[in-house]
């Protein structure tokens, strides 16, 4: 397992740019070119977006077995059930999970979860006028949890956030089938992500956001294609993207 892990796993000792270093990097090239390659001009937005301490759920694809326990753990916490007047964890219907495991042929499984982007392309794409008091659009970063949330009362269900997420990052934001309002933004379960806790294989960890990680912010198809090439020498998924 370790043999292949080295090939694809983020070594964890990347260059760890700070915003300041990154801004310098843009000027002088070097490592930042990689970031520009990955995020294009959005990297500049990011670098300008400040340095809040953001945390996220990180996937180790070499350890993931595709069992989808993370989906059920997420759903159980974030979609609780009212039982006899008490709120209990739900039965874990994966339909309501904010983390979703995408499975491919050849056998690659890619858990996809909000990347907690500092530059929030999803929020930037929200056309709802910012509230005068809070400055928030319908989609906003919660200052307490630092997660992305939607004010469904003001949301117009236009799907702009989902499109921005899909074209620029992971594509995890999905419009509700009926209302078009965004779903599946990670809540981090109040700082104790259940997916991380209940993954039987230790494939998930709760870490600081670092945009220089190998697969950071990529959609599942792109991740799967890279993994499939490494593991099986092919990236043919039969045409479905």
């Amino acid at each position, binding site marked *: 397992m370790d043999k292949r892990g080295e090939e694809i796993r983020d070594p964890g000792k990347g260059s760890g740019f700070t915003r300041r270093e990154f801004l310098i990097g843009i000027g002088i090239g070097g490592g930042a070119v990689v970031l520009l390659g990955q995020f294009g001009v959005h990297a500049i937005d990011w670098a300008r977006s400040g340095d809040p301490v953001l945390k996220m759920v990180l996937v180790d694809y070499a350890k993931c*077995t595709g*069992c989808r326990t993370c989906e059920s753990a997420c759903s159980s916490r974030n979609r609780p059930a009212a039982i006899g007047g008490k709120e*209990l964890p739900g039965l874990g*219907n994966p*339909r309501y999970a904010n983390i979703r495991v995408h499975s491919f042929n050849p056998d690659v499984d890619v858990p996809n979860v909000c990347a907690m982007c500092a530059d929030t392309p999803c929020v930037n794409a929200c056309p709802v006028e910012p509230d005068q008091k809070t400055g928030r659009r319908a989609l906003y970063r919660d200052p307490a949890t630092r997660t992305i949330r939607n004010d469904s009362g003001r949301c117009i269900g236009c799907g702009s956030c989902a499109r921005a997420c899909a074209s620029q990052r992971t594509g995890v934001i999905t419009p509700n089938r009926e209302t078009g309002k965004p779903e599946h933004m990670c809540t981090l379960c109040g700082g104790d992500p259940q997916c991380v806790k209940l993954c039987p294989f230790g494939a998930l960890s709760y870490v600081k956001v670092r945009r220089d990680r190998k697969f950071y912010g990529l959609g599942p198809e792109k991740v799967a294609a890279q993994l499939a090439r490494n593991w099986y020498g092919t990236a043919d998924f039969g*045409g479905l993207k």
Partner: protein
Amino acid sequence: MSGKPGYHGRILNIDLSTGKIEKVSVPPEDLDKFVGGQGLGMKILWDRLKKPGIDALSPDNPLMFMPGPFSGLPVPSSSRTCVVTKSPITAPVKSDHSHASTVTYSNMGGFFGPEVRFAGYDGIVITGKARVLSCIVIDDEKVEIRDATKFKGMRTDAFDKAILAELGDRGFKTVYIGPAGENLVPYSSILHTAGRAAGRGGSGCVMGSKNLKAIAVKGSGQPTVADHARFLAALEKARSVLYGSAYAKSWAEQGTARAIVGNSNAGTEAVRNYREGTFPEAGKIGGDAARRDVWVRDIACYCCPLACKKSGMTKGKYGGVVHDGPEYETGVMLGSNLMISDMPGLLKAISTIDDLGLDQISTGNVIGFLMEAYERGMIDRSFLDGIDLKWGSVDATLAMIEKIAAKDGVGALAAEGVRALSWHIGKGSEKFAIHVKGLELAAHNIQANQPMALSYVTASRGACHLSGDNIAMQNRRAMLDSTGMCFFPTFEPALEEPMLALLSAITGREYDKAEFEKTGERIFNLEKMFNYREGFRREDDRLPDRFFEDAFTVGPKKGAVLDRNKFQAMLTQYYKERGWDPETTNPGESKLKELGLHSIV
């Protein structure tokens, strides 16, 4: 909806002849008595086939995809779908009914069973025959039968990709047949995720007979449970037993492939068409070798902490993507049983068999039989259409696999299985035609393993290695395969208590160990009654002569052979303990009464 906790209380009934789609409620007492999965499937089969001798390939034979009460809930390792139907393979020695055959069931892991429950059904029952090759697409309440003629003849790996491209949504979970099933090879399998299969007993052939290429299902719902808080507590307990345990890690390390070397060392492996129990070259095709040279991933089914499935890649002449294997059954049936010790060649054979949609076990067994008949000069090269079918030949094995799936030349006869082959060839070849009731034996050899011999001869679907080595085990397994849980985690004894608590919390019926086994006994006896009605008797519970005559010549169990008298005494004792007539194997009225089957049969 029945309002019965733990269930949706309805099955999806599809008649492919008329195109009629119905959501039919299940009597609550059937859920109590037969639970789900294998048990509920058996009850529906009994209800639908009111008389013996109905042709398994006729439109009347229902093909059922049955999850259980655990399915669709995050109960560890509860990913299984039991495919239940009437067997197109088995037959009694003699019967008044021309198409007499046993029940058959085959159980697969993955994601299909849970998804059926997400879509809102406790099972899918398919009857009839579509006019053209078709597929069924289920999206919650919306159910469609679609033309699938453009997929005709498509192999399963390509189809697995093509169907999702067609549907445009990777959220669908699919099951499908390959060319073998379309060609009505009796031992065809039903595939899922290109590497998981309901392999045994010919369910893929029944699916082919209905002109059904595939079922795709996707859903957003979930059943409720009777006692929510108790369910959550028992779930936590079940996870704590398995998570991080040495037991779970051992499965993740090698899956069932560990036994390729282990059983060879114990003298209980199928080697050289069951002539031997030990394969000196087992190390070349075992779990250690696969971990070193082939596997790149450990893969788990829905909510399973064991991850026994492996995938990888081989290079060279036989190179390619390996969806699964070697596992114990596939590695032995296509490896040691054929004296093949070339790992890439073995994996090429395994992946080709899955790609064509054949049962790995029966295919390996049939080719082993032909290799032996060829070696003994009972058949010549022209009989084999020019294939030089020598022990250990990968190329000859691959050629034979293709011929079987296409029913081409000798493949048409080989597709009928070892019993039909031995009748055709004669010359005493029945002695080494390794089957029970027409279904080929699996990878556990029995000269030195009499309890496994009991499993093979008394199993309800013909030679089944999973039925159980004794009565209590058989009853427990019949019940377990009705719940949706896999049996691999249940070797861990500490799981039993939380598993029973989960079942009780979900269904609202209190299951202790005794009630669990009793329910399994009821299911096993209904299967027996089905087979008995078809004409199966004690004389059908027989083994080929090889096991009583050909003592092992190598390995730690050298000299081992079964004793006819001891074997018959064991059987007599078995029927008596079952409460069946030892002469006829008829369960009889008092047993049926005791199990609450009296009013049904």
